[in-house]
C-alpha cells in the first residue's frame, strides 16, 4: 500500500515537472514565402522578357541568394534571433518558402536579415545544408560564399552569347557585399496565429538603383570588381507583401 502511494506521488511529480516544463515552451514556427518579381511582373526563368531602366530587353536564367542572421522584432523592441541559413533559388520553388522554427508565440512588428552570409560562416570550413558548397554558391579561389547570383541574356550585352552574369560575394572591407534588410510589418504579426509572411523580392532593383546598370557596359561581375555597386542595388530589393 505504502509502495503504491509512493509510486503515485512520484508519478504525479513527474507529470507536474513535465507539465511545468511545457508551459513556458510556447514556441511556434513562422513561414516566409518569397515572391519573385521583376518590377510588377512575376519573375519566370528563360521565358519572359523584361526591360531595364535603359529599355534594354533581357531574360533571366538564374536567380538565387542567401538570407541569414534573421531577427524578428518583438513589440517591446527586443529581437528574436534565428540561427538558420537559407538559400532561396528561383529554380527550386520549395526553396522560396522557408520556415523559421522555435519562435516564441508572441507578436512581432518587423523583421531584419542580411542578404548573404556573415563573416564567421565564411571562415568556418566545411559546412552543410544551405551552406554546402555543392550548391554552387561558393568561391574556391577566394573562399567564401557567393551571396547572390543573377544570370540571364540581354541583346545589349557584349559578353559571348549576349549573356550577363552577376555573382556577388565578399565579406571583407572594402568589398563587403553583405547588406542588411529591415522591414516593418503593416500590422502586428502573431506567431502561432498568423500562418505566413509574404515578402516580395524585386530582381529589377538589382539593375536599377542607386546604380543604373547598362548591359553593354557591365555584363559580368564575378569577383570584387564592381561587386559593391550591385550589392548597393540589391540592398532594397525586399518589401513586405502581406501577412496571412
Amino acid at each position, binding site marked *: 500500500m505504502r509502495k503504491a502511494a509512493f509510486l503515485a506521488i512520484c508519478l504525479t511529480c513527474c507529470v507536474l515537472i513535465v507539465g511545468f516544463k511545457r508551459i513556458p515552451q510556447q514556441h511556434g514556427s513562422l513561414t516566409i514565402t518569397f515572391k519573385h518579381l521583376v518590377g510588377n511582373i512575376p519573375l519566370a526563368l528563360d521565358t519572359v522578357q523584361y526591360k531595364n531602366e535603359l529599355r534594354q530587353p533581357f531574360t533571366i536564367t538564374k536567380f538565387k541568394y542567401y538570407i541569414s542572421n534573421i531577427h524578428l522584432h518583438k513589440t517591446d523592441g527586443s529581437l528574436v534571433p534565428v540561427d538558420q541559413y537559407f538559400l532561396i533559388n528561383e529554380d527550386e520553388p520549395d526553396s522560396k518558402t522557408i520556415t523559421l522554427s522555435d519562435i516564441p508565440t508572441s507578436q512581432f512588428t518587423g523583421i531584419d536579415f542580411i542578404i548573404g552570409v556573415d563573416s564567421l560562416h565564411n571562415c568556418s570550413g*566545411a559546412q552543410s545544408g544551405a551552406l554546402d*558548397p555543392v550548391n*554552387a554558391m561558393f568561391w*574556391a*579561389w577566394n*573562399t567564401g560564399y557567393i551571396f547572390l547570383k543573377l544570370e540571364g541574356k540581354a541583346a545589349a550585352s557584349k559578353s559571348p552569347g549576349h549573356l550577363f552574369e552577376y555573382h556577388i560575394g565578399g565579406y571583407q572591407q*572594402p568589398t563587403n557585399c553583405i547588406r542588411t534588410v529591415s522591414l516593418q510589418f503593416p500590422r502586428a504579426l502573431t506567431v502561432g496565429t498568423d500562418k505566413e509572411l509574404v515578402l516580395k523580392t524585386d530582381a529589377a532593383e538589382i539593375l536599377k538603383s542607386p546604380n543604373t546598370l547598362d548591359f553593354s557596359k557591365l555584363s559580368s561581375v564575378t*569577383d570584387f570588381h564592381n561587386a559593391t555597386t550591385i550589392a548597393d542595388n540589391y540592398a532594397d530589393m525586399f518589401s513586405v507583401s502581406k501577412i496571412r
Partner: protein
Amino acid sequence: MKKRLITISAILLCALLFSFVAHRSTEAVTAEQVTLKIPKGFPTPVYNFSNNDPNPLLFSLGRKLFYDPILSKDSNISCGTCHKQAAVFSDAPLALSRGISGLTGTRNAPALQNLIWNTSFMWDGGVNHLEVQPISPITNHVEMDETMASVIRKLHRSSTYRESFSTAFGDTVISSERMLKALAQFIGLMISANSRYDHFVNHKGTFTTQEEKGLQLFRDKCANCHHEPLFTDNRYRNNGLVPDSALHDKGRATITGLQFDEYKFKVPSLRNIALTPPYMHDGRFNTLNEVLGHYANPKKFAPNTAKEMYEIGRLSSADKQAIIAFLHTLTDSSFITDKRFSNPD
C-alpha cells in the same frame, strides 16, 4: 567424409580471416598514429581539429580520397598527382604542374606540410580554412575541373565509398562536409618536424661548422620572414621578383583587389626546401644558389620590393654555401617515407 569437409572449411575460413587481417594490418592506421602531437617548440595550431576529431577511419578515408582521381572531371588527376610524397607533396621538379587535359597552371605546386599552422592557403592566401582548401584544386579549370556536386554524385555511385563513408561516420550519408573533413584529417596530420635542424635545436644532434655558420647567417638575413620553427610568418610580400610577362600574376592583389598587395605572395615555409625545386611562386629558379643570388642582388629588385629584402645585403659565395648547407638540414626524410601518408593502393 563429413568431418573432412568441416576440417577443410575451417582451414579455408581461417585462411580467409588471416588474409583479411593481414591485408588490413598493412593498411590500417591506429588511433595512436592519427593522434595530433604538437612538435616541441611549435606554436598552437590554427586548425585544431575541433569538430573533426582525428580517427583512423576518417583519416584513411581522407587518404583514399587524396590519391583517388575520382575527384577530377576526367578521373585522371588526383591530389597526389601534383602533390607527391617523395617530393614533400610538391610537384618537384616541375615549375608549373599539369592538370586536366595537360593544361598548365600559373603557379608552382606548394609542398604540403604543417598545414594546420597556416593562417591561409595558396600563394595568394585566397583560401581561408584547411577544410575548404581542396575545393580550390577540385574546381579549378586547369587542375581537376570538377564540381563539388559531381564529386559527391560519383562517390554515391561507388560501392567502396558508400562502405567507407558508412564505416567512418556510422550512417550512409555522403556529403561534401564529410568528404572535406576526412581530407582535412589526412592533410592536416602531415607534420614534418624530424629534420636534423629539429634535432639540433632540441639538443639531440649536431651541426657541422658550416651548417652552424649557415644557421647564424639565416637568422641574421632570412628569419625576418622565414620565422622558426615553421620557417614562415604567414604574411605576403613582394620579394623583388620581376613579374613574368606571360603569367601576369598580381599575387595577393587578385584576392584583395588592393594595389598595395600587387605582386605580393605568401612567404613559403623552408622546411624540406632541398627536396622541392624549382623555387618561387612560378618556379623560376632551379637551385637554391639562384634563389640566394636573387636576394643578394637588390639592384635587380622589382618596384615596391619589401624592405626586408633590402636588409639581406651582400652574400659571399661562402655565405651562400653555408646557408644552403643549413637549408639542407631542414630535410625530414622520415616525413617523405612515412607510410601513413603513402598511396594506399
